[in-house]
């Protein structure tokens, strides 16, 4: 039998002026199951709260309705007061008669009537409340960082520095990411590797960091605070513990002509290789697709020269599992390869630019390698085709970006800056050269950015042409770049020696696959979605999974680093307590009636619906039904509304509560 108490607050004049509080207190007690009601000037004050506590004890109340301000204001206050009197706090409900009644209506009669209606509805609702307790989940205080680029490195160092263990997984043989490929960085033109390498080494040497390179995340189970991660360590064919990184095997490898990933195909590497001299870890890997031994069974030169017998041709992929409490995704970006026009690709491609056909039409990262002192030309700008110095270079921005008809709709954000940097570097290295930049708009928002672009134009005399290029074709050893100067309104044709395309930043092609493994949403381009674009920019919608760097959208280095630190601090907030506590507003499945259509699973944004097998006493499978992972469920209740048989209900906002609330209209 419910014994409900109704407490009507005047809120000084705020409610009392327009709602006849004493009257509704008198009326409320006439409602079925209401055994006590009273009005008071300030219910939220100490005396007010004491009235509630006292009434609970005196009248053996097992539910409380407070008619007062918005539950967003004082629901917690009143629930605490109830708890203090020994009543389960979830047996207390608020009828909002201030924001939704007294403040928005003038007429006392109408407002009083409405307030009474709201109380009646809340009384009916509270009859179907039942005691709940906070959900407490333990937290594994270790983090997983996926991706060893600058964002991943930063997040790793921040968390490790705070004293927690971090597991860093990188799919390439070395950490460092795209930043390690860059020559110099805008807007200060400091050497990318000079600032990055020390951090890479720090990661490697940090006692709190466990590094998995040449490894990928295979599977993720669990939920915030309690993830179980399976990592695939791809076979390096090298026993890491034995290798000293002497490099002899690399020198002796007879295969010399495999295109170097690090040099973006502008140079070659052996079959056994370290991606670049400063690689971390400095351990080679055998590329089994080109290695003679793996192709023919003969050679084994590397094995012969290795003094430590570290070469292991039979090494297999290894699966390891790690328990972590938070995951930071920092998988970065790729450059859009404009020559590969897949039929089902999102975009139509730019075959008319001749990328892939003409050797001297290159993309931004290739130019970085050309300009880099550690690159294939030792930093000299030479045409890939004939190794001659190009005297006229055209840079084209927005290739694939900001192009709804042929490319991606979004802006790749960093191209304006790096193109300016490229043009500038070119001019610094080829003093008599001419640099042209085709652009749509210059977007140089950032500290020192606009100044940097102006410097390229004014000091280094880079010729900026506002317009798009329609076609590039070869004519007698020159590349004819046909475009339009939209400012002067004339078509332009430039006979260039080399063309550099600032192709769009795209998500990693495997990004959606990882997103599905992690259960986080991503946009149609494959960039991971943050849960709130303004207030929660580094959190994914799955609790405990955070985002950093260009995997979320195109970003430059300072932004990636900032985001990585933010993500790290979110993980650290989580690690601040041993237990996670959260409101028990979660969904619950009626196992008797669920038939496992899994519409609930389809609508769940949090992957909180899991499969559960129901077996009879003999162990025969009876059915497979839905089950809620209360660690993941955020309590939106979309599943409840979607379930045709109402076999999943949202605790705290269940069907009965709302049904009777409606009926009391």
């Amino acid at each position, binding site marked *: 039998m419910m014994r409900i108490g109704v407490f009507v607050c005047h809120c000084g004049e705020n409610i009392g002026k327009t709602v006849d509080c004493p009257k509704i207190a008198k009326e409320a007690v006439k409602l079925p199951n209401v055994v006590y009601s009273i009005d008071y000037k300030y219910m939220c004050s100490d005396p007010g709260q004491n009235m509630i506590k006292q009434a609970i004890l005196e009248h053996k109340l097992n539910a409380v309705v407070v008619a007062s301000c918005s539950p967003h204001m004082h629901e917690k206050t009143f629930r605490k007061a109830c708890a203090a009197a020994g009543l389960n706090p979830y047996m207390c409900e608020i009828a909002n008669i201030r924001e939704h009644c007294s403040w928005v209506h003038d007429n006392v009669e109408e407002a009083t009537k409405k307030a009474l209606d709201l109380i009646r509805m809340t009384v009916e609702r509270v009859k179907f409340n039942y005691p709940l307790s906070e959900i407490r989940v333990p937290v594994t205080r270790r983090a997983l960082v996926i991706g060893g680029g600058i964002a991943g490195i930063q997040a790793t160092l921040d968390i490790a520095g705070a004293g927690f263990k971090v597991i860093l997984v990188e799919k390439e043989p070395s950490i460092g990411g795209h930043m390690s490929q860059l020559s110099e960085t805008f807007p200060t033109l400091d050497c990318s590797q000079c600032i990055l390498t020390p951090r890479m080494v720090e990661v490697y040497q940090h006692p709190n960091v466990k590094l998995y390179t040449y490894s990928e995340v295979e599977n993720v189970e669990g939920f915030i605070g309690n993830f179980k991660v399976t990592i695939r360590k791809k076979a390096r064919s090298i026993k890491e513990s034995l290798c000293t990184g002497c490099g002899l095997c690399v020198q002796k490898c007879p295969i010399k002509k495999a295109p170097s990933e690090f040099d973006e195909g502008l140079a070659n590497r052996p079959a056994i290789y370290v991606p670049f001299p400063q690689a971390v870890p400095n351990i080679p890997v055998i590329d089994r697709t080109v290695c003679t031994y793996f192709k023919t069974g003969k050679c084994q030169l590397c094995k012969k020269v290795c003094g430590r017998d570290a070469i292991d041709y039979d090494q297999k992929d290894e699966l390891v599992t790690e328990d972590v409490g938070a995951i930071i995704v920092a998988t970065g970006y790729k450059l859009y390869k404009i020559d590969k026009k897949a039929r089902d690709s999102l975009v139509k491609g730019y075959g008319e630019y001749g990328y892939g056909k003409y050797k001297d039409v290159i993309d931004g990262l290739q130019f970085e390698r050309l300009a880099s002192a550690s690159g294939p030309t030792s930093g000299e700008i030479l045409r890939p085709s004939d190794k001659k110095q190009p005297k006229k270079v055209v840079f084209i921005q927005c290739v694939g970006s900001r192009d709804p008809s042929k490319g991606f709709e979004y802006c790749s954000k960093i191209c304006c800056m790096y193109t300016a940097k490229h043009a500038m570097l070119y001019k610094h290295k080829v003093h008599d050269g001419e640099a042209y930049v085709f652009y749509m708009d210059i977007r140089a928002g950032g500290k020192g950015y606009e100044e940097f672009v102006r410097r390229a134009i004014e000091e280094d005399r880079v010729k900026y042409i506002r317009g798009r290029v329609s076609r590039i074709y070869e004519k007698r050893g020159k590349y004819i770049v046909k475009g339009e100067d939209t400012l002067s309104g004339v078509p332009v044709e430039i006979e260039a020696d080399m063309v550099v395309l600032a192709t769009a930043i795209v998500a990693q092609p495997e990004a959606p696959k990882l997103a599905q493994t992690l259960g986080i949403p991503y946009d149609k381009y494959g960039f991971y979605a943050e849960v709130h674009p303004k207030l929660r920019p580094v959190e994914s919608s799955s609790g405990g999974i955070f985002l950093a760097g260009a995997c979320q959208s195109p970003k430059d280095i300072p932004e990636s680093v900032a985001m990585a630190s933010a993500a790290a601090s979110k993980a650290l907030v989580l690690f601040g307590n041993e237990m996670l506590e959260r409101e028990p507003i979660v969904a619950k499945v009626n196992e*008797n*009636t*669920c*038939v*496992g*259509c*899994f*519409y609930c699973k*389809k*609508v769940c944004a949090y992957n909180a619906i899991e499969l559960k097998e129901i077996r009879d006493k003999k162990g025969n*499978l009876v*059915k*497979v039904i839905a089950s809620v992972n209360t660690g993941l469920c955020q309590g939106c209740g979309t599943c409840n509304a*979607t379930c*045709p*048989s*109402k*076999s999943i209900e949202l605790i705290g906002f269940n*069907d*009965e509560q709302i*049904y*009777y609330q409606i009926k009391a209209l």
Partner: protein
Amino acid sequence: MADIISIAKSIFENQKAEMIIGYAKATKEGRTRPVVVRTLDEVKELVLNSFCLNNLSTYLTRKENKGKRVAIVAKGCDIKAIVQLIAENQIRRENVYVVGVKCSGVRRGFEGHDSTKIAEKCITCNVKTPHLFDELVEMKGEELPGTDEKAESIVKLEQMTANERFAYWEEQFERCIKCYACRQICPLCYCERCIADKSMPRWIETSPTKRGNFAWNIVRAFHLSGRCIGCNECERVCPAGIPLSLINRKMAKVAKSEFGYESGMDPNAPTLIGTYDVKDKEDFIR
């Protein structure tokens, strides 16, 4: 193409299934009944003709048939239901052996329906040759006359005023006796406990009163929106003669026009409810 009996024999001989759900002759001429065949001896009972109206896929979700290897004789329209059941995790493709029927149309119904005419669903059928099957069998049937009057009725209803429409359905639903035959026969009403039978809270009143009937019929139609495959069994079996296909087809029409969606075509396609497009039309939202 082999006939249904030899196909059935080979299913048992090659152990493709434990049982075959098919059609047999009913006691009266011009009528068939569903039958479950479990042995080679019983196979001779099977028939296939234009009186094979029933959508047998409704038997696939029976508790006692779950997890078993079941062969089923299914017309294109029935296969849509099978597709939907697969998409909704009710059956597994590998557990059902579909004997797809190349169909030239079935009759409108048995007693109380004009069985000389072609069923309305057949007139607009787009799966006369089934779209998912393990084996095909041809149903030989004569050309049946008939027009799709329901399509016109829907348009007529759409053109009425809201009040007229309300009055129309009030009259139709009033006849409902809440026998729930529409639900029982429906291949997609597989819930173990229908919302209509839920008592805490009782969203749909038990009594076949006007208001209880209205609620039930709206909910039935809504729960089938974007799922109903248009086999029209509900309307055929309704003892009160409520034109349920009007409302089902209207919702199919909406699914098509608003989302370009057609149910029952591809078991791997995303379902209509349970997915969304950020570009879904919202001109009606303030």
